[in-house]
């Protein structure tokens, strides 16, 4: 008998075969021409537009939307990509509801912003579908830059450096480039192998070599890179994960949400990916939502997110929370895990309700248990494998201005660097700005 959502344990194929394509296809299908025209018509071409101010990469949004209106989506794409070379991915994964679209004057006027993200996708898709790379590399400068990490920050940095004529080598620990775009974002946000397609498109600028399977500290030493290259950019992300520090954490069936998402993203046939019947996700950020929603979409019967603070404190936006709820995920807030109960494999998780007090969060005596055969931990990632000699700010690499670290000739950006939100779009901005700074420095002699 085939498996169903009711099959106990962690098993694959809970859904009919055709359900997987539907569940993991585009969350929002791309606009067709007419839809794009209607959506674009709503833009007022605001002066000193609030949406631009709200975009970490400061894309000229009114201009690109006007270019769509005027029947020039590829020109619109150029406007986008000149500021944000990963504009295609950002169109898919940006929390636009808390960035450009939240700032849109029509959000204030009507509670219905111009659909900037989907319009951005329309434009960038139009250009990429034609295989056009609209930028031309400057004459070679003879300078060589090492970029560590082929995620959004590293790729944005590498592209901008290559554009200026520098020779760039990008190292990444994983087998494929893309970083979180490839390994860490919900599949339905970047369907159809977009992450790799975008990297291939980006590399058309020329002058960028990617070496995968090379991790800093394992296969590479910062000292060697500093010696062998004219500059080094670190976009190494947050490779570590926080532990629960709850009893029973080592039970079978308990794993990090990021590992689950990475495995899901690398699984070609999702009907073969096992998932629990009763899944509990601990945490309140985007990773928690991405793990929970995808668990549900794989056919788990019950999926519950449990977060220790209140809803407003959740890292996932209200929009993400609603999306989770609409998918059938239950969200419990104000409860923290006490222990994981199971004999070898997890069976239940016990939580205590919490109270916010002047001295911080406090566990109450009021407890409850959730049935669980699979638990995903999504309580945050941490910087890991930082080379010695780099000054830290809090738990991240300290940077000044456009990503300058405490070591001469070494820049950093993206999630590993202090400051800024841990968003794809922020990483792109930091990588781009560091590249400009590196360029200035290299050309100054």
């Amino acid at each position, binding site marked *: 008998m085939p498996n169903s959502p009711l099959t106990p344990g962690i098993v694959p194929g809970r859904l009919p075969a055709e359900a997987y394509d539907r569940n993991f296809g585009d969350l929002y299908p791309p606009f067709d021409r007419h839809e794009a025209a209607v959506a674009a018509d709503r833009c007022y071409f605001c002066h000193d537009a609030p949406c631009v101010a709200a975009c970490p990469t400061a894309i000229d949004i009114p201009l690109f939307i006007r270019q769509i209106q005027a029947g*020039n989506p590829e*020109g619109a794409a150029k406007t986008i990509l000149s500021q944000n070379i990963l504009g295609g991915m950002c169109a898919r994964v940006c929390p636009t509801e808390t960035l450009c679209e939240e700032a849109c004057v029509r959000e204030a006027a009507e509670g219905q912003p111009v659909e900037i993200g989907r319009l951005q996708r329309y434009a960038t898709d139009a250009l990429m579908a034609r295989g056009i790379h609209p930028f031309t590399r400057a004459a070679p400068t003879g300078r060589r830059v090492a970029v560590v990490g082929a995620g959004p920050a590293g790729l944005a940095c590498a592209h901008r450096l290559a554009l200026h004529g520098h020779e760039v080598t990008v190292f990444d620990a994983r087998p494929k480039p893309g970083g979180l775009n490839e390994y860490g974002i919900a599949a339905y946000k970047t369907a159809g192998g977009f992450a790799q397609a975008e990297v291939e498109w980006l590399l058309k600028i020329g002058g960028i070599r990617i070496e995968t399977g090379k991790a800093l500290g394992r296969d590479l030493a910062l000292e060697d890179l500093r010696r062998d290259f004219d500059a080094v950019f670190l976009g190494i992300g947050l490779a570590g994960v926080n532990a629960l520090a709850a009893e029973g954490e080592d039970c079978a069936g308990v794993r990090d949400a990021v590992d689950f998402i990475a495995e899901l993203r690398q699984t070609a046939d999702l009907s073969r990916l096992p998932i629990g019947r009763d899944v509990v996700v601990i945490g309140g950020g985007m990773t928690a939502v991405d793990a929970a929603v995808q668990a549900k979409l794989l056919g788990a019967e019950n999926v519950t997110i449990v977060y220790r603070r209140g809803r407003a404190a959740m890292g996932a936006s209200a929009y993400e929370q609603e999306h989770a709820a609409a998918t059938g995920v239950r969200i419990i807030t104000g409860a923290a895990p006490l222990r994981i109960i199971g004999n070898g494999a997890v069976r239940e998780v016990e939580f205590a309700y919490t109270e916010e007090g002047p001295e911080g969060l406090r566990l109450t005596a009021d407890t409850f248990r959730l049935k669980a055969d699979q638990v995903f931990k999504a309580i945050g990632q941490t910087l890991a494998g930082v080379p010695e000699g780099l000054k830290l700010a809090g738990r991240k690499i300290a940077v000044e201005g456009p990503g300058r670290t405490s070591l001469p000739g070494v820049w950093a950006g993206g999630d590993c660097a202090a400051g800024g939100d841990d968003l794809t779009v922020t990483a792109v901005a930091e990588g781009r700005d560091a590249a400009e700074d590196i360029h200035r420095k290299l050309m100054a002699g």
Partner: protein
Amino acid sequence: MANLATEFVGIRSPNPFWLASAPPTDKEYNVVRAFRAGWGGVVWKTLGAEGPPIVNVNGPRYGVVWGPDRRVLGLNNIELITDRPLEVNLREIKQVKRDWPDRAMVVSLMVPCDEESWKAILKRVEETEADAVELNFGCPHGMSERGMGSAVGQVPEYIEMVTRWCKMHTRMPVLVKLTPNITDIRYPARAAKRGGADAVSLINTISSITSVNLDTMSPEPSIDGKGTHGGYCGPAVKPIALNMVAEIARDPETAGLPISGIGGITTWRDAAEFLALGAGTVQVCTAAMTYGFRIVQEMIAGLSDWMDAKGYSSVAEVTGRAVPNVTDWQYLNLNYVTKARIDQQLCIKCGRCYAACEDTSHQAIWMKPGRVFEVNDAECVACNLCVDVCPVEGCITMERLPAGAVDARTGRVVSGDYANWTTHPNNPMARAAE
């Protein structure tokens, strides 16, 4: 990337996008902002003769026609020529031209209809080192009542006379700005050419009342309960302007006369259309007044991208390219037979094509059970109304019947030969085919 630089009657500009003579070009502050935003040139707002400055109304100057979602489709205005002292304008023009030597600086003029007045102002403008003058024979309100603006532009003899004076008294190129408030644009254009004009620019604004306030029974814009006709411009006037530009471009008497196209240009596409119909540069006002100077960035990028895609390397290559295809009705091919085709996959079953055809055209669309709309070829005259009212792009198309096919409406076999009204048997004036 296509080179957008233009040379128009000796006036160089980095792109063909000029701001028309209007409020946006009334002073240095605006013009400098425009140049910073990327505009290729300006026609400075019309200067009048020396003397006490012009007086404007102190109530609303602009009326508007909105499309859905309050999109500005048309503006009208009752503002007069510059109300700033001549001296100040001239000083600023000189300064701006000095600071921005690569941009076109054309000065619009309107003075009383006597030779001395024109001679005097031309001398003053020459001192600014502006690139050219544009004679404002177009404004339909206020100044026309004083024998200027469209009062001159509506009398071809006056146009010719004043143009000749100007050509006599200045070395600067002379552009003559034409009013559309006439019956046939070719007459004033021919007059300008006879007078020696280097170019014409058109259209100026169209006499208009944008709306009536039904509570106060006052036309808008209302000044203390009364209104007057203003000059209408913006996207709504573009088709009128395109036709007038094309008429001048294809008139044997004026063919080749450089044209600066004006009228509702809002996007690169509008501009490209004016160029194709014979314009060498374009002038913009309402789009800038609605969206700000930054709008030119879309125009520059769009025109350049389109020229690249089409393989045009200069604006001059685009100018006039559609002119040979503008003809008289009598030369249209009557053997070009098309029928409407409705794509059932794209049809959203709104029935607008049916309503339009059934009520107002040729009853050539069937409405079948399940709201299926199909064309009845036996009635379809190919009027295109269904295409025009269909809300879905590409859903209804006009397909040409190949030669040899039978037109179900006429029962005749479609001929592959070109044949027009001049030789049609029903035409009493038809020339013999032999």
